[in-house]
């Protein structure tokens, strides 16, 4: 639940999602669910010339299981808060 809760605080912020098929999609986080499926609005691909496959797509749903990384906006990472939440989660299971 830690990361689900954390991603909910990022709604409305711009993030870049790196996928396991090497696609890299940047967009505004619209929503996230318990599986860490991610919905992005106003998406841009890192390399549209190489990847024109989503040229007519503005908004998309990314299945959580194909996410490799999410690049987070530096201003939205509260390190102390994350440490506390991680320790709480480690204790409670």
């Amino acid at each position: 639940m830690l990361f689900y809760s954390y991603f909910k605080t990022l709604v409305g912020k711009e993030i870049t999602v790196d996928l396991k098929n090497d696609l890299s999609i940047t967009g505004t986080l619209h929503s996230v669910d318990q599986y860490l499926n991610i919905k992005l609005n106003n998406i841009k691909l890192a390399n549209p010339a190489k990847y024109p496959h989503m040229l007519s797509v503005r908004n998309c749903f990314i299945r959580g299981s194909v996410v490799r990384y999410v690049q987070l906006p530096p201003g939205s990472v509260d390190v102390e808060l994350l440490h506390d939440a991680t320790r709480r989660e480690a204790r409670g299971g």
Partner: protein
Amino acid sequence: MSNEAGIRPYVDTTISVITNDGRSIVGVLRGFDQTCNLILDECHERVYSSKAGVEQLVLGLYVIRGDNIAVIGEVDEELDAQLDFDSLRAEPLQPVTH
């Protein structure tokens, strides 16, 4: 979970599905479930190639298993109509490696 999340808002609209093996399937979403299994109507596959334009294969009515779906995109019909598929050249997408 609010209705805003997930794929419910895409029902009865045209979507583009990127599968884990790197294919791109476009069709009208008629239904879905928890695991992202989809019912896709009037679907066709867009086959990308670096040597020729995009080939469109008519597939018909498909059920796509959620485990094999990477991305579901909401197709903007206006943008889509502007694309010149005959002159688009691109390598096929990489498959997803888990």
